[in-house]
């Protein structure tokens, strides 16, 4: 006699798009066996704003603001990523001072992004307090961004051929002050995480991402380095001024959520190291290439195709632009690191408990502006 499988063995559960743990508008379709997740399917597209298509309708210099709005907690790295491609296509080289300024700002932005992530990860775990501490730390960075660009989050600071405004004494003073006070406070906040046994038990050995799986899914950034692959675009294919500064790539071989957490923690300290060196090495000189000054900016024409990749706080951020010789790009395409990192959730998010799934999806560092674009 054959016993047939009961049809109602599993419970289907929709997590999101409106759900406290989904960092925006991720929808997870779960198949549950009691508390165990048997299958997980991420469904995206709730924040789709058609940014790539809108870029085709705008001048090269105007498209920058759509990149601000992709990874909105890390907007300066996004700008640097777009300009890396756009300037290559348009044949405009920014002066050295502008490159240094961009390096500094991108690294500060990386710290801000990791701080937001750590706070949100604490909330995923049920820790209320570190969230406020990291936002307090981030406020100092936002003050620096405000001083430089005039706005806190969506800075629109860099522009084709350089940056919008030169670093003045006050900004450099603020950054130096930040470099002095930040490491101690950072350690204080992170001890709340790493010295807490419950936090360790929630993350250690949870969400194991094997090296070959990570590579085959195109996972990059702290996710990949948390799986023991020493790959960072800043070292592998240096852009801006990363070949002139000395820093290490933190790698964790534990492959779990805790490893990713520690990689991001160490990355913040390496970013501080980069900023410190950059402040010492930054030369005097123009901060803007006169070939791309304001009156000429919208007349810049690009021809051919170009792909440039940079390391954002989430991973490898690639921008592909095709120009047809007109003042507007023919096609813009973004390789979003979070999108690729999210796709691996299907592998590492099954046969775990619901609480672990939240820990795992939190450790990916999801920002939906970037996944859906």
């Amino acid at each position, binding site marked *: 006699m054959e016993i047939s499988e009961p049809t109602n063995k599993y*419970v289907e*559960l929709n997590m999101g798009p409106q*759900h*406290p*743990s989904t960092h925006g508008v991720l929808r997870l379709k779960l198949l549950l066996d*009691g*508390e165990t997740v048997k299958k997980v399917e991420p469904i995206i597209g709730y924040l789709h704003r058609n940014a790539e298509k809108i870029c085709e309708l705008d001048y090269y210099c105007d498209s920058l603001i759509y990149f601000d709005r992709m990874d909105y907690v890390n907007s300066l790295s996004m700008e640097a990523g777009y300009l890396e491609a756009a300037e290559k296509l348009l044949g405009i080289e920014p002066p050295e001072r502008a490159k240094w300024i961009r390096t500094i700002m991108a690294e500060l932005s990386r710290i801000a992004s990791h701080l937001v992530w750590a706070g949100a990860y*604490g*909330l*995923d*775990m*049920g*820790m*209320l*307090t570190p*969230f*406020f*501490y990291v936002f*307090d730390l981030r406020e100092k960075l936002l003050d620096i961004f405000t001083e430089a660009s005039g706005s806190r989050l969506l800075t629109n600071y860099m522009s084709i051929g350089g940056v919008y405004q030169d670093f003045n004494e006050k900004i450099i003073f603020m950054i130096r002050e930040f470099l002095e006070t930040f490491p101690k406070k950072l350690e204080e906040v992170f001890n*709340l995480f790493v010295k*807490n046994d*419950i*936090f360790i*038990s*929630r993350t250690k050995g949870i969400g194991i991402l094997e090296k070959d799986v990570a590579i085959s899914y195109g996972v990059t950034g702290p996710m990949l380095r948390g799986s023991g692959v020493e790959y960072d675009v800043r070292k592998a294919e240096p852009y801006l001024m990363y070949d002139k500064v000395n820093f290490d790539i933190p790698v964790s071989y534990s492959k779990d959520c805790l490893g990713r957490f520690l990689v991001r923690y160490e990355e913040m300290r390496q970013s501080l190291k980069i900023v410190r060196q950059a402040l010492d090495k930054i030369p005097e000189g123009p901060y803007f290439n006169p070939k791309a000054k304001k009156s000429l900016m919208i007349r810049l024409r690009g021809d051919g195709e170009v792909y440039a990749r940079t390391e954002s706080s989430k991973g490898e951020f690639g921008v592909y632009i095709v120009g047809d010789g007109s003042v507007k790009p023919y096609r813009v395409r973004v390789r979003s690191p979070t999108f690729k990192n999210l796709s691996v959730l299907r592998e590492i998010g099954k046969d775990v*408990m*619901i*609480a*672990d799934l*939240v820990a795992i999806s939190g450790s990916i560092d999801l920002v939906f502006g970037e996944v859906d674009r």
Partner: protein
Amino acid sequence: MNILNRIQSILSPLGHLPSYAGAYIIETIIVLIFSVTVIAGMVYFFRKYMARVQNRIGPNRVGKFGVLQVMADGLKLMQKESIFPDGRDDLPYKLAPIIVFMGLILAFIMVPYSNLYWFGSLTITHSNVGIILIFAVLAIMPIGEILAGISSNNKYAMLGALRAVAKDISFEVPMMLSILAIIMISSANTFQPLNLQNIVSVQSIPFGILEPIGLFIFFVSMIARASYSPFDMGESDSELVTGDTTEYGGLRFGMFYMGLFGTIFLGSMLVSVLYLGGGSGPFESSIGFVWFMVKTIILVIISLTVWLSMPRVRIDKFVNFGWKILLPLSFINLVITGIIILSGIGGIA
């Protein structure tokens, strides 16, 4: 002599039956006013304390220093429209918040708010089996949570209720065993070992010093009973939205909310009564209530600090913790208590 008898003797010119009826009505009003005031104070204090811990200011707009914020929130909850989910089981859905709140208020009746010398220990209802009764009415509260979870036709609520059941079973056995150890000591000293007033008065050495393991188990159990972080698996707001209370709004949600804060206060009161000597202190005959409140508030602050600094434990790990660590510990506690009683440490017969 308890408060009920006092009020009854004042009302005695009215006759036997009316005076008792009047005394019960007045007593009910006193308990309701006291518990709701305490809960409102707890909510305000929690929000201010949480803000202080997190480098914020906290409520400061309604009333002086925001003291009326809680009242404003309560009024808002009362004005809200009741939204009922489709496909609910109507009676349990409406009954659940009342059950949770009722269990809490009933437990407030039996706590001895002072030592014996101060207004007859300031207990509202004397009972010879107070300690059993108080845990019996506390056991009503999880029924409300479970009813809320299974009647609101929501998968999150259902999962939350299942977690609440698993959690309750795994901590209640060790908790009752640690209570048993207290009854053992108290029965070696008085003829009414289950009477909470007697348990307070026999603590010439607080039981928390004699039984530190029991104190630990009971405190952990009280965190789990009130279900706040690190043991808030039933709600787990980042996983199950808000667990068993997901479909509730308005005053019904308010009852669950008051149940949470009331249970934190009640748990602190119980730890203080059972392990820290309740209303007794250095100047014991005069200010028993003050001593009791000081101990309780210190315990409340400890509880809130734990809440604010801990992440959530995974449900299976908590079940493991309950059955594999707390339960053996509570047996060890029983053995230690037996040795203490036999050896007569600290003047205990």
